[in-house]
């Protein structure tokens, strides 16, 4: 446990911040979760987390607000898509003014006055709870299935090394549909940033959520992100997770099927290069009947990047007629890249259909040579083959402007490595050109 000195050092550094019974209890439960490691989080991601905690981050203990920088927010707009936009600069949420009759309500609470329980599940949410001063609360009224779209732009921008703690609570009313985009970015300074985020989402009966969790930060940014999603009857959940760029990043997706007949799909895509450490852990808990879950994670790792995937499916005894699938396919594009993949199926009844599979390989050498023989340079050929590899993940994105946006982000990310700048490219992706002209 010694390498977790750094993890707990932040707590020791700011004793004035931890007066009061609530804090004492939270610190205690965090230490418990570190020591017990019931979910294996520390065992699997501990070394990445220890790396994350090495820099000497400052913590905003005095609750200083970070001002909104409109330019930074506008740059992240998606063409043909006009969501309610919330911008979080470091740990300050800037919410738009919404008329009171709207079905959507956004508010920022002090953690001390939050009217709902402040839960924690895995080690990252325990850690987050200790430091998060503010909680963003979003609720969507039920009884109407109009679409609501909300985009949260998480921006890290500071003049020092900084740790930011973000906490979001979302409640989706019965039958309501929400598109929720979380877009993480960092400024281009060489500062070390650490972002801790915990998002807790409740779907009431018949609600549906398309959740886009996009990480497009910098090599000096570390992220520890946990999402807990609870679904009642007849809910539909669709998660698209893109780890396009981050020095060190771990996402946890923990989903409870609390009542019958709900469906969840998680499509995840990771691009790693340099010395990046990128991990995803899923906990899909089937606690009710007729639930369907489908996980599809793809990693493309280059240079000396390391990826980790832990995929847990837990089917309880009551959860009869469950269908749960999981697939993890990886490409190691360089001899120094590494992936560790661990599926975990815990099934406690017989009436289930479950499967999982993991494959790891290189880009097809025969295809690569065929393309080069036709004159396509190696770097471009690699990019095209990689794009082909993740095509199905992107095609699964339901909303067209977002699908285009994701394809563009992935292409931009992949072409970053090849010698071909977008300006000279006439491939069928005008979104790239549109974006670069902005």
């Amino acid at each position, binding site marked *: 446990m010694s390498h977790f000195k750094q993890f707990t050092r932040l707590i020791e550094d700011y004793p004035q911040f931890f007066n009061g019974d609530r804090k004492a209890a939270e610190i205690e439960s965090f230490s418990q979760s570190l020591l017990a490691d019931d979910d294996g989080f520390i065992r699997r991601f501990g070394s990445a987390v220890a790396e994350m905690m090495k820099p000497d981050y400052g913590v905003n203990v005095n609750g200083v607000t970070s001002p909104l920088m409109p330019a930074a927010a506008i740059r992240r707009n998606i063409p043909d898509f006009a969501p309610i936009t919330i911008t979080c600069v470091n740990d300050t949420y800037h919410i738009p003014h919404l008329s009171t009759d709207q079905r959507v309500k956004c508010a920022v609470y002090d953690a001390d006055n939050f009217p709902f329980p402040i839960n924690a599940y895995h080690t990252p949410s325990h850690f987050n709870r200790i430091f998060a001063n503010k909680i963003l609360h979003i609720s969507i009224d039920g009884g109407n299935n109009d679409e609501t779209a909300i985009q949260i732009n998480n921006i890290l921008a500071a003049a020092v090394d900084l740790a930011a703690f973000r906490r979001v609570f979302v409640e989706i009313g019965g039958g309501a549909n929400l598109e929720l985009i979380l877009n993480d970015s960092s400024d281009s300074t060489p500062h070390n940033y650490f972002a801790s985020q915990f998002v807790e989402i409740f779907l009431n009966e018949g609600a549906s959520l398309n959740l886009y969790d996009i990480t497009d930060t910098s090599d000096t940014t570390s992220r520890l992100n946990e999402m807990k999603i609870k679904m009642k009857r007849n809910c539909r959940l669709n998660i698209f997770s893109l780890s396009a760029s981050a020095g060190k990043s771990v996402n946890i997706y923990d989903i409870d099927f609390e009542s019958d007949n709900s469906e969840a799909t998680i499509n995840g895509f990771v691009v790693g290069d340099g010395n990046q450490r990128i991990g995803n852990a899923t906990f899909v808990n089937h606690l009710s009947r007729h639930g369907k879950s489908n996980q599809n994670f793809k990693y493309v790792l280059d240079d000396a990047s390391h990826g980790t995937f832990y995929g847990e499916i837990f089917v309880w005894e009551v959860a009869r007629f469950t269908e749960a699938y999981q697939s993890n396919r990886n490409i190691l594009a360089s001899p120094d890249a590494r992936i560790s993949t661990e599926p975990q199926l815990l099934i406690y009844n017989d009436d289930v259909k479950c499967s999982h599979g993991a494959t790891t390989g290189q880009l097809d050498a025969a295809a690569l040579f065929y393309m080069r023989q*036709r*004159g396509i340079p190696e770097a*471009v050929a690699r990019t095209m083959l990689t794009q082909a590899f993740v095509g199905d993940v992107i095609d699964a994105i339901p909303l067209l402007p977002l699908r285009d946006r994701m394809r563009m982000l992935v292409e931009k990310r992949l072409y970053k490595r090849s010698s071909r700048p977008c300006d000279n490219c006439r491939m*069928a992706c005008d979104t790239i050109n549109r974006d670069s002209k902005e």
Partner: protein
Amino acid sequence: MDKEILLDVKGLRASVAGKEILKGIDLTIRKGEVHAIMGPNGSGKSTLSAVLTGNPAFTVDAGSATFNGKNLLEMAPENRAHEGLFLSFQYPVEIPGVSMTNFMRAALNEKRKYLGQEPISASDFLKLMRQKRAVVDLDNKLASRSVNEGFSGGEKKRNEIFQMAMLEPSLAILDETDSGLDIDALRIVAEGVNKLKTDDNATIVITHYQRLLDYIRPDYVHILYKGRIVETGGPQLALVLEEKGYDEIKRKYDNNAAE
């Protein structure tokens, strides 16, 4: 007067997985010529095409190859292609998820970039695709699918010649392009190759059968055996082989062809 030399190969030796396959190849090809290379299975015909096009699976151990006056063996495969070298693969590769259109556009634009030209416009590109598809009667549906994915054996070979038509190489190596083609397709593909023939380009036709050479008339026929070109002659050499098989060649060269 002799035409200009396009490709000049001298003493080329190459190996794969530590095993020597090509044991000293000499071959000179001039503009406007058609060379046929024949020889028993496993003699090294495809290896020669792979080495000339720069397949990284093969190692060059000795010798030289000059193409357009440039050292071919030092060039990256993509640059050999830009210089005008094209291989119609014996086994074309399926590339799921990469559309024929994107593939051809990337190939064409990279070549144009190499030659200092602007990328082709979308409408010119589509026009060119349509025009070149007609050369080998390639189904429009195939052009909209992923590269070679689910193509029949014959469709793959047609697709190779379609790509050749798009890229207009100065030297095309056709490695058993006739295999897998039905009688009509063989004629269509061979006529396609002939349409692309000019006084300034050249073709190497690797085949086992005379019937292809009935359509694509070779100026020279070479017999490759155990990594060496053991005989070179005119078109009549293929006819002799067709009649007598390789027995005589094998008898003659097995004795003095030291391993």
